[in-house]
């Protein structure tokens, strides 16, 4: 009986079955807040429509729905579930919360039962294989409901001033080994603290990025072992411009998925982390050529966004 709400939408039923609308309704206040709160960070990797479209897919990933990381224990999942229920249960939010709560209940049921969770993990394993599992502990987890955007620290730019950790200690941690700050827990502090911490960064290396970009960025920013030749090279490196790298990474993933879908009957190939890395390295090289100075490139980026930003 693994039939879910997806099949229901095939029956053109009344409005109760449109997940996207609820998602956007939920995310709106946060959008507004971000705009007002951080006028400085003007760049965005996407637009609202893209988010909305993505939301339908988001509903499928129970971890994202509950706003927990894939390695969360039962206790964390329970807590996240309760917190979300408190906000969106129809008793609190009215009839609009119905559809969302249904999803929550389903997600909770699956993730709380060990066997169902294993099965589910296997079914979404492809996604995790790409970036998350290889980097456990280095990616940020979520506090509270899923929101359209998350924080990302460009560790290349970070000068290790610890200002952000000082202002929002639950959200940021300082990586002593690498000498830079990183997001540990999205929305770990209240909104004001986060706002202050973002503004406090002297090199403006804390960015608001679209949710769907976040895992890619977090994967790419990690130093990867570099193959050495004799006594030359070796050590660790990461893309000089992680945003560019993410862009081409996504493009490739998209192309690949597209190709995969067109060959509908063929068995889905899972991309190994090694392949993902290879792709990332390739895109990184392209970027390296195009780039000269970190900051100049960066400003360019901010002034001329790539994903067709719409001025609203």
């Amino acid at each position, binding site marked *: 009986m693994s039939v879910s709400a997806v099949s229901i939408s095939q*029956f053109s039923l009344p409005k109760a079955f449109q997940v996207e609308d609820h998602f956007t309704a939920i995310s709106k206040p946060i959008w507004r807040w971000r705009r007002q709160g951080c006028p400085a960070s003007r760049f965005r990797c996407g637009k609202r429509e893209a988010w909305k479209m993505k939301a339908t897919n988001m509903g499928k990933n129970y971890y994202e729905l509950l706003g927990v990381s894939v390695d969360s224990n039962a206790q964390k999942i329970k807590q996240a579930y309760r917190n979300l229920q*408190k906000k969106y249960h129809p*008793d609190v939010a009215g*009839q609009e*919360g119905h559809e969302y709560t*249904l999803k929550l209940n389903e997600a909770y049921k699956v993730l709380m039962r060990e066997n169902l969770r294993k099965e589910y993990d296997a079914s979404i394993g492809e996604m995790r294989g790409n970036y998350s599992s290889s980097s456990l502990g280095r990616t940020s987890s979520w506090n509270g409901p899923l929101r359209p955007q998350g924080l990302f620290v460009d560790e290349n730019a970070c000068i290790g001033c610890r200002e952000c950790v000082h202002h929002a200690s639950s959200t940021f941690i300082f990586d002593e080994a690498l000498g830079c700050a990183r997001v540990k827990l999205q929305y770990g502090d209240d909104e004001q603290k986060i706002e202050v911490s973002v503004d406090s960064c002297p090199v403006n290396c804390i960015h608001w990025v679209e949710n769907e970009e976040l895992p890619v960025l977090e994967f790419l920013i990690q130093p990867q072992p570099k193959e050495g030749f004799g006594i030359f090279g070796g050590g660790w490196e990461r893309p000089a411009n992680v945003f560019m790298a993410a862009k081409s990474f996504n493009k490739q993933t998209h192309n690949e998925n597209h190709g995969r879908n067109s060959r509908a009957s063929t068995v889905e190939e899972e991309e190994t982390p090694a392949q993902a890395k290879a792709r990332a390295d390739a895109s990184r090289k392209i970027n390296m050529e195009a780039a000269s100075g970190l900051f100049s490139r960066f400003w360019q980026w901010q002034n001329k966004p790539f994903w067709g930003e719409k001025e609203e």
Partner: protein
Amino acid sequence: MAEPAYTVASDSETTGEEKLSATFSETAIGIDIGTSQCSVAVWNGSQVELLKNTRNQKMMRSYVTFKDENPSGGVSSQLANEQDVLSGAAIFNMKRLIGRVDTDPVVHSSKSLPFLVQTLGIGVRPLIAALVNNVWRSTTPEEVVAIFLVELKAMAEIRLKRPIKNVVLTIPASFSRFQLTRIERACAMAGLHVLRLMPEPTAVALLYAQQNASQNTNTGSEKIALIFNMGAGYCDVAVTATAGGVSQIKALAGSAIGGEDLLQNMMRHLLPDSESLLTSCGLDDIKSVGLLRVATQEAIHSLSSQTNVQVDVDLGNGTKICKVVDRGEFEEVNQDVFDKCASLIIQCLHDAKVDTEDVSDVIVVGGCSYIPKIKSLVMSTCKKQELYKGMNPLEAAVSGAALEGAVASGLSDPFGSLDLLTIQATPLAIGIRADGNNFVPIIPRSTTMPAQKDLIFTTAHDNQAEALIIVYEGEGKKVEENHLLGYFKITGIPLAPKGVPEIRVILDIDASSVLRVLAGVLMPGSHQPVNPVMGVRMPTVDDGHGWCAEALNRVYGSTLDLVTVQRKI
């Protein structure tokens, strides 16, 4: 436009939106209509307050007397003495009879009550009547409950100095959805709008969640509690997981057993042929039954505090009972009832997938919680040495209902006392008739609400163009053992060999427990339903529903049957 004096719960489509739109205006009051006692509570801005009647009582006996033209209930009318209730003019125990048909064993056991309960055994509503001036005046359980609710409403309006419209009612967990519609109808007759119908133990769970949230505000640790609620008419059990003001109902179990059964068993013990007293329905017989009833009730109450009691009663018809009853006897004659209570607890723990050592608190509430045997039974079944002490057993349910009323009315409290939520679960499984005469559950019991599940069925015969969807609620394997909720026909199934057309049945329960049944036909390879999907709000059955299933069977036989599709998981 003036506000309508009352809203009527319609039999057909009353959408959830309509239900909700009228709510967020005033604080809804909580009402606990018990089989024997009623109470009203409201959130007064800082805490739950029980409302008292003009005689300064928090608990009012649930009965209505039909002495003259205007029936009066136990809220306002002053009774001369206990026996006056038993003159045949007072109707009580309606919570046991509401929404039941005359083939129901609970109705049959109510025949020993000192008023007229006439059954014909054909699956229709029993005839209930009160004796007024030597005339049997017929009434209905809904009417009796409504009269009582009107008095409760008037009392609350005087106390709160504002009109009352929205209420949260507590109901037994074992109530079928059809019985809920009867309660809603009674509320509509009384001009009340039902915001929520809460199973009694879940109301207690909400109170427990509030007490816990205020004790340790920031610890996110989860506490599991077992709630055992036994009143005069019903016994309910719930297992709840509570953390941070959120009470998550893990499982519910309930049965129509209660103090009334204890009382009847005891009456039978004292006077073995007590049932024959009512056969002639004469005035003297009613009086005799009434006297026996009062004497037995007093004896049971005494046995809660002392080990034996002297029963000394003259029934007026030449029979005198003079007997010493001890607690052991009482427990022996009621062994079946106690066994049933224990089995409910075991079933509930099993459904919740909780072991007794995980349970941190055991809460026993309701009128029967004073009986020593009940306490010891619950403790031994849960392997606990003591019970939770922070609640008044008689006021817990109504207090929880008042909290829910405040939460559902959109109130918030500066100190966070109303930062609460109950996540409800379905008390009974809901499914349809398929595979012959079998009940196929689609939403199992103890599923978190809101819930939406679907299951695929197919035709039982070649070239079958129509199929009957008959929806039941209950736990039995065969449909006869369950409550019928409604039925409708799907037409226009494309002609195909049996097993080919897919009939997808979706059940949707929203947070206010409104059930919708959707059914559509899909042909293999297509994702579009062949015809418009049928969407029916249940229950659709009316009072004579005991007949419906049989009538359907007689007319259609098995020609419109469905079978389940085996699916690989």
